[in-house]
């Protein structure tokens, strides 16, 4: 018999991109923000990140060993979950918070469903929300001031979003209660202080979760991922755009179209959420139009929570809630087949 050749189905070529290339690119894209976090909040930022990453990776390894599945801890997805979870924690949390959060994110958020590809919710966000619901005091009482901001009153450190929400609430209610003049002046003054710090917010010199504060460094990483096409532009732009538009219309205390939209875009977890978490491949729609729907939905929910909900920040909940709608979005946003559809015989 003559020489025999290998036989396989088409195509006989493959693109070199695989899960590790995508995941490690995300890691690379998050490194500027990590360096920024270490600069602004000191070494604790690094320790927290390492703790979440290690607990995520080890948790995944243990579960896979126990269930006799192939080990996937080197594909980089657990590392990404770890870093994103760390970026959602405040820099002053005690050591066990990141560990518990990392384990919960992986074990409940990912492995329970069967591992990467099967999880309906973003594991890092699920971890964060779990921590926030279980230990609200520990999660919220640990904000630290970033480098470059003089510590005036260490006890009243609050994120800009919290300040905004509280003071706008005061100003809105004070229209009816005119005897509250001191409070009004106080609140206006605080808001005035906030207005001048857009540059600080862009660079990251504000209190907040350790990886979410520097819009500039996050956008550098996001630009890299957009260039590599590992994230699309549809989700982040529609998400941020919706938040900007709605907060401009409804976010002010002097009537419609007076809201501090730029403030809303630059503050809180919007940028990291829109570019790094809402774009998570597994938990976002596969159709192009679906990605718009998803982004707009995230923006809508975020705005609702920020303006009228009980929390100052709503990005995490918005994304998690929208994650749950992904199968439905996919179903109703099927693209039109190339060539107009005609009745088949």
């Amino acid at each position: 018999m003559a020489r025999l050749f290998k036989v396989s189905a088409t195509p006989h070529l493959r693109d070199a991109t695989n899960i590790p290339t995508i995941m490690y690119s995300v890691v690379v894209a998050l490194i500027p923000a990590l360096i920024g976090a270490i600069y602004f909040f000191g070494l604790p930022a690094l320790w927290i990140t390492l703790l979440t990453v290690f607990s995520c990776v080890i948790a995944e390894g243990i579960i896979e060993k126990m269930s006799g599945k192939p080990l996937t801890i080197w594909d980089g997805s657990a590392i990404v979950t770890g870093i994103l979870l760390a970026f959602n924690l405040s820099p002053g949390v005690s050591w066990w918070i990141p560990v518990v959060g990392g384990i919960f994110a992986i074990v409940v958020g990912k492995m329970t469903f069967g591992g990467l590809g099967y999880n309906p919710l973003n594991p890092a966000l699920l971890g964060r929300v779990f921590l926030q619901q279980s230990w609200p005091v520990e999660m919220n009482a640990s904000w630290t001031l970033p480098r470059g901001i003089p510590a005036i009153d260490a006890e009243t450190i609050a994120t800009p979003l919290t300040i905004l929400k509280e003071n706008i609430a005061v100003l809105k209610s004070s229209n009816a209660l005119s005897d509250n003049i001191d409070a009004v002046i106080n609140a206006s003054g605080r808001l005035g202080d906030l207005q001048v710090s857009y540059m600080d917010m862009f660079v990251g010199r504000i209190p907040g979760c350790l990886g979410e504060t520097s819009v500039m460094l996050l956008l550098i990483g996001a630009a890299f991922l957009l260039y590599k096409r590992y994230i699309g532009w549809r989700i982040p732009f529609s998400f941020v755009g919706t938040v900007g538009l709605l907060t401009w219309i409804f976010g002010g205390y002097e009537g419609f179209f007076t809201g501090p939209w730029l403030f809303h875009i630059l503050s809180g977890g919007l940028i990291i959420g829109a570019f790094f978490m809402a774009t998570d491949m597994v938990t976002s729609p596969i159709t192009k139009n679906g990605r718009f729907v998803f982004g707009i939905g995230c923006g809508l929910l975020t705005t609702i929570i920020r303006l009228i909900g009980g929390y100052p920040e709503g990005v995490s909940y918005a994304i998690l809630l929208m994650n749950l709608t992904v199968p439905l979005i996919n179903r109703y946003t099927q693209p039109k087949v190339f060539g107009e559809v005609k009745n088949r015989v």
Partner: protein
Amino acid sequence: MAGTFSGGVHPDDAKLLSNNKKLITPAIPSIVILPVRQHIGAPSKIVVEKGQQVKKGQMVAEAGGFVSVPQHASISGVVKAVEPRLSPMGIKVQSVVIESDGKDEWAEGCNTERTVSSMSSDDMREAVKTAGIVGLGGAAFPTHVKLSPPKDKSIDTVILNGVECEPYATCDHRIMLEYPEKIVKGLDILKKILGCSNAYIGIEQNKPDAIKVMRNAVKDYKGVKVVSLKVKYPQGGEKQLIYAVTKRKVPAGGLPMDVGCVVQNVGTAMAVYEAVALGIPLIQRAVTVTGHGVKEPVNVIARLGTTFDQLIENAGGYTENVSKLIMGGPMMGISQFTDEVPVVKGTSCILAMEEQETVFSAELPCISCGMCVDVCPMHLLPTTIASMVEHERWDDAKSYHILDCIECGCCTYICPTNRRLVENLKFGKAKIAEIRAKEQAQKKAAEEKK
């Protein structure tokens, strides 16, 4: 602005291996194998017997219906056998095996010049039909069928496909460089047969020399335009090409003639010219023998029925690590387990790949990245449909337009978890066709009972 379509992928085109190699004519093969099924449609009917003398260009099998073509002897010699032989489609097909007498004599009436200007369009169409011409881009659909549109469809545009979007393939590139006159004359004949005035020749931008040569060649012809197209696979897909050139969308489930277009490969145009003007039936074609698995990639004009191993010798033989042999390009080509199969009318490329090029990482669960959706030139949801096929949900797959899949393979190519998407879609299409056939048979049986 270069024309293009939405979706598609950018594999390394690997054309440098062979795009500067002139077409060579190998020695006459000592033996040729001519299967009766080299085209889409009914198999041809063999009209010769074992032991019979045949000459080059003599018909050895007649068309088996309207959507079918005759086969012609590609060498002169003796019919050694009429028996099933392995074809590159992977199945055994009844074939005429001819042993060469070394004389290479033309059969009577072949290779005689005719005056095209005095021929009617029906004469020309008949000449194409009797010459056994099929689409030489790879699909091998009988050309005379495409040239006989039903009366209610008016054709206003002929598009020549010189895109050659499959990586590695360079045979169309070479014939455009070396035989531009024949191609343009063939296009003129196609225009006359269809009675239309508009014509385009679509060529990808990675062949600037071919664009230049063809532009020069069409200078004296009215209404013929050479269009440069973006380098993207599958730019040469029929529907994609029509859209890129004319911005017309072939309706889903429809044919190019529904939008007034007929698409022919540049090689087909050349064969049409040779058949109509020179009386030469389709007995040879340009083939690229290439890949890292052969020592010296070449472009050859091969007689139909030449076995692959003989052409591999023209390319300097295999390298040590050769592991895969493909008929056609790497995206849609059919992988062969042996090289003892003949060149057929649809063989544009013989590609030999080395071991390391054929190893892919294991298939993992879908991470719903949506890359397959982004690249699908037909705007389908490959991952969703593939899952439906895996779960045998045929009706759902149909409602997600599985039948519109053109099997280009972009989805499998791009998938970061290496899922075999197009494989599932092809399987699903075949299964649905099978179910439909079964249902129709049942219906018929039920009606007969009544």
